């Protein structure tokens, strides 16, 4: 490292300009803090080095929530998508999930523009090599060229760049994704600060030259006819564009044969890769080995953008050598003559064990140091962005001496994501899944604004006007639900005729409109004929009214579960509690509690190795502790 005598003074330093870094930096700057965002290459801002899409099952929820809280991702994809689909529409509203194919270059370019035009935000191309602390407080960072940025908070969003190494068969390069420069110094500085590091891996498939593919042998996949935007602020009319297509094809026995015959040349199976990879995103080698009885696996061919011929081969990520890759890809129908533009590769990188973080994403041992994204052991653009936003808000609030901003598991997928990361043991990159959310019937993508706008407003990222419009929406929904429940429907002749016409059983006694909406074969819209006093309401209001009525029983059962959950969340554990004083805790539980430092009894109860009996002990002790402290 070099010594310059340049010294800058800012409020917040964000290290890394991927999806986490962008949200973190924007949040801080928008909350009025002087912020600088570092990136090894300004050209790689908001880069999508893996799949060319945003959203998907449960990830779509995250994007909606980010938007409701005042983040940027939803707005950015609404302006740069080239195909969009609502997934799971045949299923319940809780699991409807939006996914859009992005024009990668456009996505990146537009986000860069937003950053460039944000007040209080400076972009700086430099590698941060060292964190500067005093008494376990962050005081600044030092770049490779020796410049020091004094600051009050640092947010680490280094993604997959720390000591990154890419593997393609026997060939190993020490770079970040897409051959970008890796960051090789920061890890040492973190270790010196006592931060526990780990090593994860992930992978990406090859990119093909579109002209070398024969789409006539594949099934075309279209976007939705009517596109729904991600952002609650986007005018739905603005997203009705001409959409690009994706293509579906399949692997076959020949593909699997080639893979099986070359497993010894896979760095994973040969033991060269040390990092732990994600089970939910298996390489094609993994799929063939673990699911040997499956005769074929789906392969989706997705465009990387409108102005490029590169096509992403979803479902076939690999770290096999180039020659094996080519042979394997060429067994797939439509890809017989494929030309690889970029090889598939696996990437290994340093990250942390996120249990070192509070739910605010601040390090427990270093005040003012926050982190988000893949650095925290997660995977995915959306997971990264969500953490970036929360870390950014909390960094700003802590500088402004305000109450921390924490969303719990019953409020948002964002809350589930962060709680899981900081509370549960995970030995692989963490991906958001709908099955991880206990209260998902309440955490729908369609009501993210109703759930979270207020929080975004209180944090300072949502304008008063937007917040008020959500309050109005809530009122309209409540009024309409009330009206429907109190509009009696008698068993008159024309009602009976109407019902039998709609394939619904006739009435035995009088009922109300809300009871009728509950019938699977009827809906709010169908009932307009017999609902004479109905006023015209916005589509999003009607959607909520219908869901709240149709699924009322399930929703109220889930609300009861949430109440139970909240009881334990509200029991806070003082940060100065000495678990060694609680003699009746079992040793394992005591050690776990000391290392995790849970903020509430609820969080403590989710730590593996802490039993219900330990929680009873803790509750009893806390009661006494609080009493003593009051006197």
């Amino acid at each position: 490292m070099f010594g310059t005598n340049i010294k800058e003074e800012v409020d917040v330093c964000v290290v890394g300009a991927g999806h986490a870094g962008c949200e973190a930096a924007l949040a801080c700057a928008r909350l009025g803090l002087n912020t600088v965002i570092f990136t090894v290459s300004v050209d790689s801002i908001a880069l999508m080095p893996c799949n060319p899409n945003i959203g998907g099952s449960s990830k779509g929820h995250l994007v909606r929530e980010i938007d409701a809280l005042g983040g940027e991702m939803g707005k950015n994809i609404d302006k740069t998508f080239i195909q969009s689909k609502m997934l799971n529409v045949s299923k319940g509203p809780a699991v409807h999930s939006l996914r859009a194919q992005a024009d990668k270059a456009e996505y990146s370019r537009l986000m860069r523009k937003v950053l460039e035009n944000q007040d209080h935000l400076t972009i700086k191309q430099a590698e941060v090599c060292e964190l500067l602390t005093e008494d376990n407080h962050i005081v600044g960072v030092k770049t490779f060229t020796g410049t020091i940025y004094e600051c009050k908070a640092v947010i680490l969003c280094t993604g997959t760049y720390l000591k990154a190494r890419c593997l393609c068969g026997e060939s190993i390069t020490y770079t970040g994704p897409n051959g970008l420069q890796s960051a090789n110094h920061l890890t040492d500085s973190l270790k010196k600060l006592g931060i526990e590091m780990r090593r994860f891996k992930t992978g990406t498939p090859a990119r093909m030259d579109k002209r070398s593919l024969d789409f006539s042998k594949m099934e075309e996949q279209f976007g939705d006819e009517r596109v729904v935007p991600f952002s609650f602020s986007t005018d739905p009319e603005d997203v009705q564009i001409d959409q690009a297509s994706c293509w579906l094809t399949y692997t076959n026995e020949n593909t699997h044969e080639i893979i099986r015959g070359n497993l010894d040349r896979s760095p994973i199976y040969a033991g060269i890769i040390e990092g732990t990879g994600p089970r939910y995103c298996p390489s094609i080698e993994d799929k063939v080995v673990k699911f040997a009885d499956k005769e074929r696996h789906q392969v989706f061919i997705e465009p990387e953008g409108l102005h490029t011929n590169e096509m992403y081969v979803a479902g076939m990520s690999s770290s096999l050598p180039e020659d094996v890759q080519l042979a394997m890809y060429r067994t797939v129908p439509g890809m017989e003559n494929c030309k690889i533009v970029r090889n598939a590769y696996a990437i290994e990188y340093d990250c942390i064990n996120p249990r070192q973080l509070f739910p605010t994403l601040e390090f427990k041992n270093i005040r003012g140091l926050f982190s988000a994204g893949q650095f925290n052991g997660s995977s995915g653009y959306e997971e990264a962005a969500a953490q970036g936003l929360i870390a950014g808000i909390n960094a700003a609030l802590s500088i402004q001496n305000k109450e921390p901003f924490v969303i719990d598991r019953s409020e948002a997928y964002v809350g589930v994501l962060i709680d899981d990361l900081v509370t549960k043991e995970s030995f692989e990159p963490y991906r958001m899944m709908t099955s991880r959310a206990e209260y998902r019937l309440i955490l729908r993508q369609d009501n993210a604004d109703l759930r979270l706008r207020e929080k975004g407003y209180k944090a300072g990222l949502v304008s008063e006007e937007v917040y008020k419009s959500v309050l109005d929406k809530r009122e309209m929904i409540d009024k309409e639900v009330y009206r429907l429940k109190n509009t009696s429907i008698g068993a008159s002749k024309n009602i009976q005729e109407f019902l039998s016409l709609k394939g619904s059983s006739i009435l035995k006694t009088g009922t109300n409109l809300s009871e009728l909406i509950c019938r699977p074969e009827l809906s709010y819209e169908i009932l307009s004929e017999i609902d004479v006093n109905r006023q015209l309401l916005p589509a999003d209001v009607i959607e909520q009214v219908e869901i709240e009525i149709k699924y009322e029983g399930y929703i109220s059962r889930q609300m009861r579960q949430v109440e139970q959950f909240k009881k334990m969340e509200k029991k806070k554990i003082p940060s100065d509690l000495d678990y060694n004083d609680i003699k009746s805790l079992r040793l394992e539980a005591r050690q776990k509690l000391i290392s995790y430092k849970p903020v509430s009894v609820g969080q403590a109860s989710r730590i593996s190795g802490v039993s219900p009996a330990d929680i009873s002990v803790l509750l009893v002790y806390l009661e006494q502790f609080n009493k003593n402290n009051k006197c």
Partner: protein
Amino acid sequence: MKTDTIAAIATAMADSGIGIIRISGEEAIEIADRMFRTRSGRRILREVTSHTINYGYIVDNFGEEKIVVDEVGLNANRVVDEVMVSVMKSPCSYTTEDTVEINCHGGVLMMNRILELAVKNGARIAEPGEFTKRAFLNGRIDLSRAEAVIDIIHSKNQFALESSVSQLKGSVSEAVQKLRQELIYEIAFIESALDDPEHISLEGYGEKLSEKTENIISRLKKLLDSSDNGKMLKEGISTVIVGKPNAGKSSLLNILVGEEKAIVTDIAGTTRDVLEESIRLHGISLNIIDTAGIRYTEDVVEKIGVERARKYASLADLIVFVVDASLPLDESDYDIIRMISGKKVIVLLNKTDLDEVVTESILTDEMNAMDASHIRVIKTSTKENVGIDLLEQAIKDMFFQGEISFNDEVFITNMRHKEAIMNAYESMLQVRSSLENDMPEDFYSIDLMSSYSSLGTIIGEEVGEDLVNEIFSKFCMGK
């Protein structure tokens, strides 16, 4: 903070003169009031002054407000027990909450019955030490005492673990584990399809799940029914001794009982030809029913005896078949072999002090021919007290290896289990109704999951990472 109302049996879980069921919490008085009536059928508990004791009846009143209890026991089918109920209003009670104590007649079955009613009326079964925990949390007792309770919480858990593990290794735990495995498989399938809709399809899944749901419902129902069945007064393995006259049944019973293995009760049977004894053997309760000798006969009276023996045998968890090995097998023996086919059987080749006519191989051949497997054969001489230790060992082994278990009473004696199974059952009914209403698949998994977690509380396992692991191990996720 609003807390729920808890209930538990406050006295020892054993047969005794008097038992106490304690209810504590905001709704304690209301709950007790719903199940208590004076002789004239009035509900008075909400009006009585604190710290009074009230005479009346515990009734199972579902659907009926007023039940008059007269001297001759009219409405006796509704009356559970004659009781004294004390009411202690907040804050002057052990827990400082409203507390009701029901003094009923002792006996595990009776106490459970009343506890069950309290639960039906809105209480929850208390955790070990929970009354004291509440007493502490409400400032009634100090930390040193509370810490003693914490020890109890731990030791009780430990005790519960130890005492239940052996039981649970048996059929109950197996049944629960099996149900959970099947449930988690279905949940994981639905979840993986939700998380990866492009790779995993749920088409036609509803029908498959519907079948599975009905299957699980009927299995849970069976478990519940068995726990409602009051056919046994005492907990224990129901063992029936059968054999033709003079095979040595009574001598066997006398040896078993006569060794002073703590006779708990000695109930003469309702008929002169059935005698029931309850003994404890290596900590296992055995209810031994000695039937009259069974003999192949055309005689009407004797036929009734055979029928009765057949009935007891069919209800038994374990049958001890005493064979007189000094005489060849005859029609009576064959009749018995047919009767006990398919049951857990220990065969005693008795009278080894005499010449052996029926050998083990002859007998097993005969029994296999009759399709009566699951048998163990032991040679004994009840006259010379030989081989009885082997019989005891065999019963003990069968119990601890889970081949036989506390009959249905596992559930009766453990209300917590019953409550958990009830919850699991209700969740499955919810799944059924979601299926019937053609709800989308993700609604099924909500209740499948509750069912899964309820069952998990029986064997002390929580949901944890089970689901995620199941998803990844069983289904190939895409990307």
